């Protein structure tokens, strides 16, 4: 599944903010970390602020901070702000959609969409942050050299 650029930026941002709700993070810092245009990111952040998920903090050390509830806010809540999930109206149908093959293909694509939506709805930001922490622990453990009982390095066979 491919998310639009704005959606990914919004998810990156809210997860950065939710990881430490007390911290003010500047748009430039996030733009730099994810290698995106600050101008583009600003539009996404202003959308998030309008929805009440982040709030801007002015002045020295200002930026944005998280204003939502990480245990309640789901990926779907954020994604829905930027992606169109509703069925296209009559004027926007794709060519061939009303043919028998088009309808059958539409049923399969709809099946996939429903699974994706259920997945996004079931994952809160708090759950994502735990997943992130587990991944980081796993990567750290994989990088750590294997050691014997006496603490000495053990060579791989």
């Amino acid at each position, binding site marked *: 599944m491919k998310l639009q650029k704005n959606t990914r930026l919004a998810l990156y941002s809210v997860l950065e903010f939710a990881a430490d709700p007390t911290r003010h993070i500047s748009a430039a810092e996030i733009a730099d970390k994810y290698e995106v245009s600050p101008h583009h990111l600003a539009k996404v952040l202003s959308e998030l602020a309008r929805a009440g998920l982040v709030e801007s903090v002015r002045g020295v050390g200002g930026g944005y901070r998280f204003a939502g509830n990480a245990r309640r806010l789901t990926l779907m809540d954020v994604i829905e702000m930027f992606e169109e999930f509703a069925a296209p109206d009559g004027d926007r149908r794709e060519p061939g959609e009303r043919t028998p093959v088009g309808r059958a293909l539409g049923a399969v694509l709809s099946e996939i969409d429903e*699974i994706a939506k*259920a997945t996004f*709805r079931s994952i809160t930001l708090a759950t994502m942050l735990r997943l992130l922490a587990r991944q980081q622990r796993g990567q750290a453990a994989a990088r750590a050299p294997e050691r014997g009982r006496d603490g000495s390095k053990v060579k791989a066979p």
Partner: protein
Amino acid sequence: MTVTRATQPPSAGKRESPPREPAGPAIRPVRRGDLEPIVALDARVTGLEKRDYWESLYRRYGSPARTERQFLVADAGGRVVGFVIGEVRDWEFGAPPCGWVFAIDVHPDARLAGTGTRLLEAICRGFRRAGVSKVRTMLSRDNNLVLSFFRSQGMMTGPFIPLEMDLDAAESAPDAGAPR
């Protein structure tokens, strides 16, 4: 799977107070006297009383001597506030032996206190004692409350895809699909 349903879907609300620490109901094997509150809890959550079903489950899963089957309850000072049921299944769907959780529920008045987490942790300990290292479950994709709970415990979508079909429709489609 017997699971709770969300009465109020989670929403993008404002900050709430920090989660309470688990209050600490005792997790223990089910007893016959627990069936009444379990039937009542299930009926309250699902809107359907299934006494015969629970009697049958108790007969099949209520013996603590069978380590591969577990029926545990959360006991808060003598009041049953939740339960979990599961078993180790060998080579089902071609998979190596693993634990399956097929019922979990917490009384609506006792939620958000870590009871579900304690129940799941307890049944997972039992699965480890039974020699398996993986736990699975399956539930309706519109059951957002319990899906979110399992996700919060670290569960991810597994390698299996549940499939179903309408038997009446299949009967009227004699030429349906490979393999033969």
